[in-house]
């Protein structure tokens, strides 16, 4: 069974329809890279998957939970689905350790000692073991983003969503974050990434989605799409971003 199943979803903000009849299913272990222009609906689609945005039509099921149902159990859903944002969104008043352990302690009722050990483990996975007691404002953007990833990993999610996680970083810092994503992809994490990193999409994406005007305009193996885009819109887009 698919881990994520979007069936003909529609998303409107007032009069504006941002997602039109979008269907997508993602199997466990897939790394789906979503590309497209600003305003094509890619971030919105991602936010619909964990219920941050309500939808007006269609249905979304993630790991057996119907996200779009009126009384959906979003609390359980979000323990299984991690999301990392472009602007990191760490909690500035909490140390790195407390940022990571907050949800395990509160939501999963984990013992403080065990939670701290977990925090050390996930921080080591993103290469920041020594930052356990630092505060977010003492870290670089790349480090903050890696802490944000660690914070999500601490919930042991089955699916990770990444919303342009490197867009706020300069190239040097982008590299250290992509390195973490690559490790996760190799470990078999199911991932949906909205990204402008074409190189990453090509090397690690098991599938590439091109979104255009609120629809999935074209999809397939990254190598195929990059080599021979079938639609003129994707060809134009790739032309613009690859040069």
């Amino acid at each position, binding site marked *: 069974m698919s881990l994520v199943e979007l069936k003909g979803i529609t998303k409107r903000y007032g009069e504006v329809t941002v997602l039109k009849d979008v269907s997508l299913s993602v199997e466990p272990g897939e790394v789906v890279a979503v590309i497209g222009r600003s305003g094509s609906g890619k971030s919105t689609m991602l936010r619909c998957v*964990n219920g*941050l945005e309500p939808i007006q039509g269609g249905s979304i099921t993630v790991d057996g939970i119907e996200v779009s149902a009126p009384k959906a159990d*979003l*609390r*359980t859903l*979000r*323990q299984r689905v*991690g*999301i990392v*944002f472009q*602007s990191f*969104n*760490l*909690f*500035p*008043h909490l140390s790195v350790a407390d940022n990571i352990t*907050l*949800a395990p302690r*509160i*939501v999963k009722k984990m013992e403080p000692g065990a939670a701290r050990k977990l925090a050390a483990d996930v921080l080591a996975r993103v290469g920041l073991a020594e930052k356990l007691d630092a*505060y*977010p*404002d003492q870290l670089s953007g790349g480090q903050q983003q890696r802490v944000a990833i660690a*914070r*999500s990993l601490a*919930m042991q999610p089955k699916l990770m969503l990444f919303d342009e996680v490197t867009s706020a970083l300069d190239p040097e810092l982008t590299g250290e974050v992509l390195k973490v994503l690559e490790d996760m992809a190799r470990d078999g994490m199911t991932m949906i990434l909205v990204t402008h990193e074409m190189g990453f999409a090509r090397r690690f994406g098991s599938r590439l989605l091109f979104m255009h005007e609120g629809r999935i305009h074209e999809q397939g193996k990254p190598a195929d799409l990059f080599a021979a885009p079938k639609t003129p819109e994707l060809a134009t887009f790739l032309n613009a971003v690859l040069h």
Partner: protein
Amino acid sequence: MIRTFGTTDILYLVAAARWTLLLTAIAFVGAAAIGMVVALIRVAPFKPARFLAGAYIQVVQGTPLLVWLFVIFFGVPLLGVTVNPWIAAALAFSVYGSAFLGEIWRGALQSIPKTQWEAGASLGLSTAEQLRHVIIPQSVRIAIPPTVGFLVQLIKNTSLAATIGLVELTREGQLTAAGTFASFSVYLTVAALYFAICFPLTQWSRSLERKLNVAR
């Protein structure tokens, strides 16, 4: 029977200042309790409740505190309920303060970016848990300076309780002035005592503001 305004009178005024402080304390606790509820309702995701809380603030802020003191102290007894001046003052000041603290705290809560709520929600925290662990701790540092500023206003406004016969600092001043005819000296002394209470608080509020501006 006219006596001169002397040391004893000053000591009486200082002693009366403790009732000003007590009234301020009661009013602040009452105002904080109601104000917290009002602030939380104002950021709650239920439109009718938000509207009601907003209307409450508008009504309270749009009417004079003195009138409410009179309504409660002189008006309510006509309905057959005896009202002690302390109860009347405590009630009126709590309601008055709650509207102001409610607005200050709503502003502080809303100054925290929406992305902080989202980050909390995405980790599986409930709305209450997001407030408790993410939003309120961050908004406290924003709320402290204006809250202390309001406390200073409250201390000065408790002088209105003199009008319903509660013998706090201002009322004691009136009584002393009546007995000594030294209105100028008496009221200057009263003013000095208010200043002595308020000035340290204002300084504290300023230093907090400076500290919080440089802190994370």
